[in-house]
C-alpha cells in the first residue's frame, strides 16, 4: 500500500544480549484520574530495536501510558521498567536513556531553533563539542539548517515537530517515546519524519510511538491497539493482518452507495464498508470473487463498475476488528 513501508524493513533488530528483557517491560500498569480509569491494568513488552506503534482512538490511554513510561506520571498501580530499571524507583537510571516527545509543543516559543537545542542539550549534560557536532548533523538531516535563527513560535507545524525530535535526540537516547508526533502535520512532513525514524531504527534505537494514523502502523515492527485503557490486540503487522480471514476487494462505481447495498446482499461477503468513494469488501468464501461481484453489480444496473483485489491495510483490519467487537446491529457502514 504505502511505498515507504519498506523503509522500515522487517529485518530483525540487531542482536542483543541474552539478559535483555527488552527496552520496555510493563506489568499490571494502571492509572486513574479521580473516577476515570485512563490505563487499565495493562501489560506491555517492547523489544529492543523495535519500532512499536501504539494505535487507538482519542482517549484510549496512549498518552497516559507513554507518560508513565517516560517517568513523568506516576502509575496508580503496577510497575514498568525501561532497560531493566524501574520507572518509579530508578528514575535517574531511566531518564538519561530516554527521549520523550509530548503531544503539545514543548519548546520555548521565543527562543530560536538553535537556542532551544542548545538549552535542552546543556540541561541534559551534553558537552559543548558534542552539542556543536550533533546539532549541526541533526539540523542538516532534518532540513532545519536554514532556520537555526528562527524563533520556535514562527515555525510551521512540521518544523516544530522536527525541532522537538531533534531536541530529544541531542543526548543520543536509546529509547524514544513519541506521543502523536505527526498529528496535525502535513503529509510531506509526515513522510520525512518517518524517514528519520527509519534511520534511527537502522541505527539500533528503540522507538515507541503513539499515533492515530493507521497508515503509520504499517511502518512499525510491532503494533498494539489500545482502547479504553486496555490493549485489544498486539503483534507484528503481519500477525494482525492475518487475523482477518478472507481477501480484501475494492469496488468502485459511479454510485458507491448503491454498490454497497448490492454487495452487502451477496453470499460470500463477510463485511462491507464505505471508504471515501469506494466500497471495501471482505470476501470470505474460498471462491474467486472478482467475476461474481462484477456481474452482480452490472446486473443491478450500476455503471462504472470496477472490482480489484488489494492487500489488507491496517485501516481495514482495525475496522474489521472493531466491528467484531461491536454489539450486533451496529451497522457495517464505517465512515472513512
Amino acid at each position, binding site marked *: 500500500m504505502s511505498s515507504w513501508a519498506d523503509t522500515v524493513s522487517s529485518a530483525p533488530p540487531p542482536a542483543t544480549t541474552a539478559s535483555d528483557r527488552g527496552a520496555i517491560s510493563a506489568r499490571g500498569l494502571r492509572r486513574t484520574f479521580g473516577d476515570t480509569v485512563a490505563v487499565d491494568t495493562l501489560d506491555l513488552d517492547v523489544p529492543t530495536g523495535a519500532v512499536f506503534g501504539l494505535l487507538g482512538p482519542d482517549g484510549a490511554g496512549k498518552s497516559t501510558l507513554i*507518560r508513565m513510561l*517516560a*517517568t*513523568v*506520571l*506516576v502509575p496508580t498501580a503496577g510497575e514498568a521498567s525501561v532497560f531493566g530499571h524501574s520507572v518509579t524507583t530508578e528514575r*535517574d537510571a531511566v*531518564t*538519561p536513556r*530516554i527521549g*520523550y516527545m*509530548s503531544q*503539545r*509543543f*514543548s*519548546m*520555548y*516559543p*521565543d*527562543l530560536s531553533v538553535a*537556542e532551544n537545542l*542548545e*538549552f*535542552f542539550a*546543556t*540541561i*541534559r*549534560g551534553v558537552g559543548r563539542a558534542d552539542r556543536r557536532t550533533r546539532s549541526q548533523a541533526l539540523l542538516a538531516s532534518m532540513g532545519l539548517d536554514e532556520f537555526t535563527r528562527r524563533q520556535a513560535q514562527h515555525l510551521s507545524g512540521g518544523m516544530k515537530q522536527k525541532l522537538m525530535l531533534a*531536541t530529544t535526540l541531542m543526548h543520543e537516547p536509546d529509547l524514544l517515546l513519541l506521543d502523536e508526533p505527526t498529528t496535525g502535520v502535513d503529509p510531506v512532513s509526515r513522510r520525512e519524519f518517518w524517514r528519520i525514524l527509519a534511520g534511527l531504527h537502522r541505527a539500533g534505537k528503540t522507538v515507541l510511538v503513539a499515533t492515530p494514523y493507521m497508515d503509520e502502523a504499517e511502518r512499525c515492527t510491532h503494533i498494539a491497539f489500545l482502547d479504553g485503557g486496555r490493549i485489544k490486540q498486539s503483534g507484528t503487522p503481519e500477525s494482525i493482518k492475518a487475523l482477518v480471514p478472507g481477501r480484501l476487494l475494492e469496488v468502485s462505481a459511479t454510485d458507491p452507495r448503491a454498490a454497497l447495498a448490492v454487495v452487502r446482499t451477496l453470499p460470500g461477503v463477510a463485511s462491507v464498508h464505505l471508504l471515501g468513494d469506494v466500497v471495501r469488501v471482505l470476501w470470505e468464501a474460498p471462491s474467486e470473487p472478482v467475476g461474481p461481484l462484477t456481474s452482480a453489480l452490472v446486473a443491478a444496473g450500476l455503471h462504472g463498475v470496477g472490482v480489484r483485489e488489494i492487500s489488507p491495510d491496517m485501516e481495514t483490519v482495525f475496522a474489521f476488528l472493531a466491528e467484531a467487537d461491536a454489539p450486533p446491529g451496529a451497522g457495517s457502514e464505517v465512515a472513512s
Partner: protein
Amino acid sequence: MMATLTRIGAIVVKEFRHLLRDPRMLLAVVITPVIQLLLFAYAISFDVENVPTLVVDLDQTQTSRTYLEQYEASPFFEVVAHGSTLADVDTAFDQNTARVAIVIQAGFARSLAAGEQAQVSVMVDGSEPNAAKVSQAYSVAINQLYTQQLTRQWADAQGLDLSSVGMLEPRVRTWYNPERRSSDFLIPGLMVVIIAIVTVQQTAVTLVRERDLGTEEQLEVSPLRKVELMVGKLLPWTLIAFAEVAMITGLGRTVFGIPMRGDFWALAVGAALFVFASLGMGLLISAVAPSLDTANILAMLIAFLPSFLLSGLAFALDQIPVVLQWISYGFPARYMVTISRGVFLKGAGFPEVWPELAALAVYAVVMIVISSVLYGRRARR
C-alpha cells in the same frame, strides 16, 4: 558540581533571553521603576506650605493691614485673594480656591486702641485634614505672638507688671531631615517597594509560565534538579534587583541629594537578604498558584498592597491597629524600610539594624524551603 553549575548557567542564559525578547517586560522592569521613583520622590509630599489663603478685611485700617502682614510674611500662608464679604469665604471654600480664610471684623483698630480684645475669625477648610491641622497650629501661633507684642508694648507704655505677659515660645528642630524634605523620607522606603514589586511579581509568574508552556515536562525528564531550576530562575531577578538598588541609590544621591549617613554595607546586606526574601515570596506564590492569572493577582495583592501600605514607607505604623501591625511583620518590606531609612538618614550600621537583618534572613530561608517542597510535590501529580 560542574554539571550543576552548567545547568544553572543554561537556565540563567535562557531567562535573560526571555527577558530581552519581551519589550513589555523590559518596560515593566526597567523603565517603570525609574518613572515611579521620579514621580514619587519629586511629586509626593506631605509638607504643608503656601496654603492658599483668603483675606477679608472689613476694617481696612492701617492697624488691620499691619496685622495682616504677619500672614503675608509667613512662608506658610500664601494670600491669594482679598475678599470683600463673608460670602466670598463660602465661595472660595466651595471652589477650593482657598483653604484658609482670615476675616477681620470692622472695628478692629478701634478695639485695639481702646485696650480691648479685637475679633479675628480664622476659618480653616477641614477637607484636607493634614493641612488643616497645621494651619490651625500656625494661625494660633501667629496670633499669640502678635498678641504678646501688642500687650508688651501696651504694658510698657503703661508701666505695668509684666509677669503675666511671659509666654513660652516653641522652637522646633527636626532631626534627620532638617529641611523636612519628603524625598529624603520617601526614597529609602520607595526603593524597597519598587524592588519588592518587581521581584515578587515577576518570579511569581516565572515558574507558572513554565508549566503553561509545556516545557516543564521536558525539564522533568532531564537531570535538572528542582533546586537548580529555582536558583537558575531566581538569579537573573536577583541581579536585576541589585542593579535597581544601585540605580535608585545613585539617582537618590545625585538627583535628589539624599544623604547616606550610615553604613553602606549594612544596606547592601539588607538589600541582598530582602531580594531573596521577596524572591522566596514570589516563588511561593508560583508554587501554589493553579494558574497564571491567580499568580498575577496574588502577586499584586501580596507584593503591592502590603509593601506599599504596611511597610512604613509612607504611612506611620505605630498608630495602626495592633492586628494590622502584626500582619505587617509578616512581610519583608517592613524590615527593609527600617533598615533603609536607618542607614540613609539615621546613620545606622550593623549594630542598629541586626534584628531586622536577622528577620530578613529567616524569612528568606523559610520561604525558599517551603516553596521548594511545595513545588516538588505538585510537579509530579
